[in-house]
């Protein structure tokens, strides 16, 4: 049995750590590239969203590498995501790959469902071993997100553009290679120290832009054409509430205990949207309302034809909070130069607003 899973950002690193410790044969499909996208687009129904196309591309490329057990997120009451696996399995079978898709619940029975799947895949390894491997995977996940947060702060103010991105790439590699908790801790301290020592522009007060929207396109830089790096290059500080480590922390551990990190967002959205509409639509509206005062602008990322985000976008245009929002729809037709032009115009607008505000 050879296991694989689709990409979403650096999520493959914690999973590699987890599966390595359990001696499971895990193959990482090639990182998202043009071929992945082309394969996904070719074999997807035409109206599908970019997460479906890219994950399908990943699954096909994994199957080419001999993977026969593929992990896919699924669940009910979310959006099309719950139906992905049914169609993707048919596509793989039609292409002649005899792969089985194992659905990992992301809406119900999250922690225990996942642990049970790991138990099954690991050929009934003892629970103690599974839990210790799982903890190590989580530690890597947290380390990745900690570095990424630090990079988000440095990118807009660094003197030598590109330094932070270079350090991020190195840090990701080092985290991937770390084999025990001590190394992992040392890598984090080391790189965060290096990031703090990067020479920064003096008196630079960067614009602050919040990035909100759909989970996958927020976290997979290939699908949003590295929007965060581009904003950093334009001297804009990016804030994002969606991190995989946050999601795991709450969804797997704290939500079952009755803690709801999203209650604040939902409450903020209440005057405009009273109910959950699936996906991340409710949260998008809530973030706009909540961050209107703190941020200079918002960038709303959504896959083309994403149902919850279209509803959110319709509602966001008419909320009374006064903050500029740029909606970027991501699909295989999104071009880099088109997006850059829009980003530059947006940043110009924000700078103008800030100047006008400081004069008043």
């Amino acid at each position: 049995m050879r296991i694989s899973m689709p990409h979403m950002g650096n999520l493959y690193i914690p999973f590699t750590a987890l599966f390595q410790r359990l001696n499971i044969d895990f193959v990482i499909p090639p990182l998202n590239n043009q071929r992945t996208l082309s394969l996904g687009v070719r074999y997807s129904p035409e109206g599908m969203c970019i997460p479906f196309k890219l994950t399908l591309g990943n699954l096909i490329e994994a199957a080419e590498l001999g993977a026969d057990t593929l992990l896919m997120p699924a669940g009910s009451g979310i959006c099309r995501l719950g139906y992905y696996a049914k169609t993707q399995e048919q596509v793989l079978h039609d292409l002649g790959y005899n792969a089985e898709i194992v659905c990992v619940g992301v809406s119900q029975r999250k922690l225990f469902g996942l642990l049970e799947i790991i138990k099954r895949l690991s050929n009934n390894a003892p629970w103690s071993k599974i839990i210790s491997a799982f903890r190590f995977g989580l530690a890597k996940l947290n380390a990745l997100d900690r570095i990424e947060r630090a990079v988000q702060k440095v990118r807009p103010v660094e003197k030598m553009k590109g330094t932070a991105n270079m350090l991020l790439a190195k840090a990701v590699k080092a985290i991937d290679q770390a084999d025990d908790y001590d190394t992992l801790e040392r890598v984090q301290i080391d790189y965060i120290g290096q990031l703090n020592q990067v020479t920064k522009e003096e008196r630079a007060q960067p614009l602050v832009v919040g990035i909100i929207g759909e989970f996958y396109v927020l976290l997979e830089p290939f699908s949003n054409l590295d929007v965060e790096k581009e904003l950093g290059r334009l001297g804009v500080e990016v804030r994002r509430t969606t991190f995989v480590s946050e999601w795991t922390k709450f969804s797997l551990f704290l939500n079952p205990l009755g803690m709801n990190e999203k209650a604040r967002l939902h409450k903020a959205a209440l005057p405009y949207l009273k109910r959950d509409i699936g996906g991340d639509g409710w949260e998008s509206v809530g973030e706009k309302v909540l961050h209107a005062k703190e941020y200079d602008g918002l960038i709303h990322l959504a896959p083309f034809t994403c149902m919850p985000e279209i509803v959110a976008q319709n509602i966001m245009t008419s909320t009374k909070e006064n903050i500029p929002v740029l909606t970027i729809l991501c699909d295989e037709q999104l071009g880099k130069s088109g997006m850059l032009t829009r980003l530059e115009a947006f940043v110009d607008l924000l700078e103008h607003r800030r100047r006008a505000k400081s004069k008043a």
Partner: protein
Amino acid sequence: MIRVGIPRALLYYQYYPMWKTFFEELGTEVVVSPPTTQAILASGSSRVVADTCLPVKAFCGHILALVGECDYIFIPAIRSVKRKIYNCSKFLGLPDMTKAVIPESPPILDIDIDINKGKGELYQAIYKLGRRFTWNPFRVRQAATSAWQAHLKYRQLMSSYGLTSPQAIDGVKPQTPPPTQATIAVVGHPYLLYDEHINHRLIHRLEQAHYRVLTPEMLTPEQLESAITRLVGRPYWTYEEEVVGAGGHYLESGADGVIGIMAFGCGPDSLMMNIVQRRAAKLRTSSFMCLTVEEHTAEAGVVTRLEAFLDMIQRRKKKGSEICV
């Protein structure tokens, strides 16, 4: 008398007799918006972001047509009508979205329908809706019971006499179908099938060419459910039976042709229609065509494709050549 507006769009075709009975029993007058026109569609499109799907744009147009014509507008948020089966986000957010994009709309009567929360919650929601018009809880209960009876009668009328939704709503007498050339099944959501402006009078055209038209409503829930089970296993979407269920059933029962209608950018349909298409390609018992409609769909384009499709069926009947999908 208080006037309650019901837009002639989206779930109108599924539930109109039920809603009408409920509100009339509570002593209100029910106002329905006129059939979709280009003006209605254009006014609706101008209010929402471009990526919104065609039926929702038409829906907003119908709301605008009702502004000034009624005192309340009824827009339910239907989350689930069966356990653990959920609906498209656009239906869930419909009342909130309408309020946001059409601020001048009359007060919206919204009600959350979610079977997953149990019958108690559902009755509470119905009661809360009815209490706006009467102080008497028994009258609400009576109205709800009659509404349910009306709905069952409506479903039964369609499945046993082979009527389409508009025929059943208008009370057309069941007729024995005239001698026909062949049977064509048209599958898709009722708001696409019966909105003659959106689908460019597809059903009318088929009937004029003397084809017998079959629609999803003519099947019983059991037939639809068993077809879904065969195609995809457990249903996932609330209105999956209209596409996967009906499509699967008609393909397997050997209709001469199956036409699927979907709206461009429809999330659930992009997957469900694909399942039907795959099934058609595998079975090769009926010809299958998928029509995707949006604002730019031109009448001539639909007619050309339809003619080509029907010609193909005719030729096949004569010569017995291979099935195309």
